[in-house]
């Protein structure tokens, strides 16, 4: 009899839905149906059984072809390459669990590497703003139960986070928002008429790249000063009307995406958005949140901040302390300035996301990809190591976009012999310790911690 597994987490977008149901075949090897997931979430569950999925590491040969090798050989190559490099860059982690991220961090420390995650090309500017100006945020549960004015600034959840609007931000009926959508005023700030903008009660069609000016206008209005007739392509009356709606809210929520943190000014756009949120709190309750892209991209920020004190762009090459300064220690800058001599791409596709020029620089040196599937990065790599798919074949802790940790489940067994990210990087760490004749103390510490934890997890 096929088995229905409930409360399954979806390893796709930053909404990190945890209410999926998955129907699994008798032998626990095949996924038959998924319920509750959106189109893109559904896809990831069916993707795992693709027959073209690699089940062994593949190493590039002198003639350019890829040849299958054993995991031991792949681990050995990775360990040696990391040790030999003067400054390796380990980047990625859009799609893996916190256990894997902490295992990678142990490897990075040992390798004196730079450790960076996809935030570097995504919500990195938001981090900078948060360092500078704080983060008056809340959970998505609070949004659902309280928010009656919701602002989407430079984000389009209807496409990027399909169930965000139905689970948290527009449609759901909550404790104080019993009438659902009827009770919510939606304001969308976007230069295009996106599907989210079409749903909104008010669409401010901002002139692209002028987010900072518009926030400044809102702040000036909120402090009772006059503003010019038009700011960022939007008429004064419309700005005043939107400001009034936010002020009158019982709970105003601002969600922002790439459209805000990746136009000119970047971190400053978010910085002033945070200041605006603070200003709104003079009148009502207001909160702000980054629309994080992947289901656990908030994870590395949490895990590495705990391990090293910084969420991303961690330069561990000094050996004595972690140094972080995006602009210098951020992946793209390091690549473009030829500051690294080895690249390890984990659970993301730098091949598809990085500028071609950056990839060309990185390709001068060893290039390793760790990813369950074939992707652009894997196909230009010197070594591709497949791993199990988190959330489908491997359980683990993930952080949703509001930094709420959720325990994800495994629904089927992974392909035989294929390790998880955590297992793989623990093997690399052990091999590095063997090669340098040092004690693998993190593995020993982990053993102690596991032995002294009574409950299974």
């Amino acid at each position, binding site marked *: 009899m096929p088995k229905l597994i409930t409360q399954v987490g979806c390893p796709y977008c930053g909404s990190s839905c945890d209410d999926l149901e998955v129907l699994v075949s008798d032998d626990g090897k095949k996924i038959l149906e998924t319920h509750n997931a959106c189109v893109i979430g559904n896809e990831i569950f069916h993707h795992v059984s693709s027959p073209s999925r690699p089940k062994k590491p593949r190493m590039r040969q002198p003639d350019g072809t890829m040849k299958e090798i054993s995991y031991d050989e792949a681990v050995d190559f990775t360990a040696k390459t990391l040790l030999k490099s003067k400054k390796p860059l380990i980047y990625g982690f859009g799609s893996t669990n916190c256990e894997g991220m902490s295992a990678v961090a142990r490897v990075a420390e040992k390798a004196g590497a730079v450790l960076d995650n996809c935030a570097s090309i995504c919500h990195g500017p938001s981090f900078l703003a948060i360092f500078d100006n704080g983060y008056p945020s809340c959970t998505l549960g609070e949004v659902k139960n309280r928010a009656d004015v919701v602002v989407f600034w430079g984000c389009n959840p209807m496409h990027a986070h399909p169930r965000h609007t139905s689970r948290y931000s527009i449609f759901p009926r909550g404790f104080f928002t019993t009438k659902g959508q009827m009770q919510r005023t939606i304001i969308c700030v976007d230069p295009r008429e996106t599907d989210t903008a079409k749903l909104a009660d008010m669409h401010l069609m901002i002139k692209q790249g002028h987010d900072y000016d518009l926030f400044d206008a809102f702040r*000036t209005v909120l402090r009772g*000063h006059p503003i010019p007739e038009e700011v960022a392509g939007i008429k004064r009356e419309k700005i005043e009307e939107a400001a009034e709606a936010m002020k009158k809210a019982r709970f105003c929520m601002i969600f922002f995406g790439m459209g805000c943190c990746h136009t000119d*000014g970047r971190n400053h756009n978010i910085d002033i958005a945070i200041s605006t949120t603070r200003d709104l709190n003079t009148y009502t309750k207001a909160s702000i949140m980054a629309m994080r892209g992947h289901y656990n991209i908030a994870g590395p920020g949490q895990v590495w901040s705990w391990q090293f004190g910084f969420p991303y762009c961690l330069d561990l090459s*000094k050996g004595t302390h972690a140094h972080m300064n995006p602009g*210098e220690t951020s992946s793209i800058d390091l690549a473009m*300035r030829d*500051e690294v001599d080895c690249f390890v791409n984990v659970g993301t596709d730098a091949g598809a996301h990085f500028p071609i020029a950056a990839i060309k620089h990185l390709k001068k040196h060893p290039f390793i990809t760790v990813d369950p599937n074939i992707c652009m990065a894997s196909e230009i790599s010197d070594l591709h190591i497949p791993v199990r798919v988190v959330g489908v074949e491997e359980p683990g802790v993930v952080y949703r976009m509001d930094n709420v940790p959720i325990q994800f489940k495994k629904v089927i067994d992974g392909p035989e012999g294929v390790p998880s990210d955590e297992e793989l990087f623990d093997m690399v760490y052990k091999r590095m310790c063997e090669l340098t004749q040092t004690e693998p103390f993190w593995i020993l510490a982990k053993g102690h911690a596991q032995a002294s934890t009574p409950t299974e997890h």
Partner: protein
Amino acid sequence: MPTITLKPYKTPELMLECYNITPDVFAGKKPEEIAELEIREGKTRVKLGDFFEASGSSGMTAAETDIHIAGDCTRVKYIGNKMTAGSITVDGNADMYVGGWMKGGKIHVKGNVHSFCGIAMEGGEILVDGNAENYVGCAYRGDWRGMRGGTIRIKGNAGNDIGTFMLGGTIIIENNAFIHVSTHAEGGTVIIKGDVQGRVGGQMVKGDIYVFGNIQYMLPGFKQVDKVEKEVDGEKATFLHYIGDLGERHPKSKGKEIYANLYVKA
């Protein structure tokens, strides 16, 4: 003044981190000892002598020591890091963090500098004949106490984030700047002789900005209050006087709010 000359003779594969190239470290050392100083290329520890030929003599104290780098430092970071006195001249370009956390003395770069020039500077002088990239005289990430004193003069153009979180001191850009001047500043003076695209004085609490050229996009939080005659950096001109950022908090003195000033040449 006794001068130590460093002649670069080898280009590093990655970037060199030379926290040690300061009059403070060089003072009282012979060229042979200076060549032995540790610098870093990634995680590898190398010696200054592996990349530079050191000659000449140093003074007994930092104030009596002059460093002359007779060549290009495009791939050398942290020149003059935390220096308190003395002087450094670079004949070519220099990479990031020139004069970072500097407290005193003088640095003269004859070429261009990369980002973070004069980051968290407290005193002294930096002169750059060429252009600067981003973050001239800015604060370190997350620090609300930026540049506190000293002078930075860039003869060419500068990028974005000039004087972010500035508290004191002076920054002069003799040509154009991109965006974000004195963002979050609570003091200090920035003078831009050329044009700026926009975001001048955003979230600014206190301090002064002078722009001789054009501001393409003025922030809505700035309001013109006056027209004044002023002498700035040796030049006399009439300026439109704006106050702002009206969207930001401002301290009060004798019951009146104190705003930041923006002067744009009329």
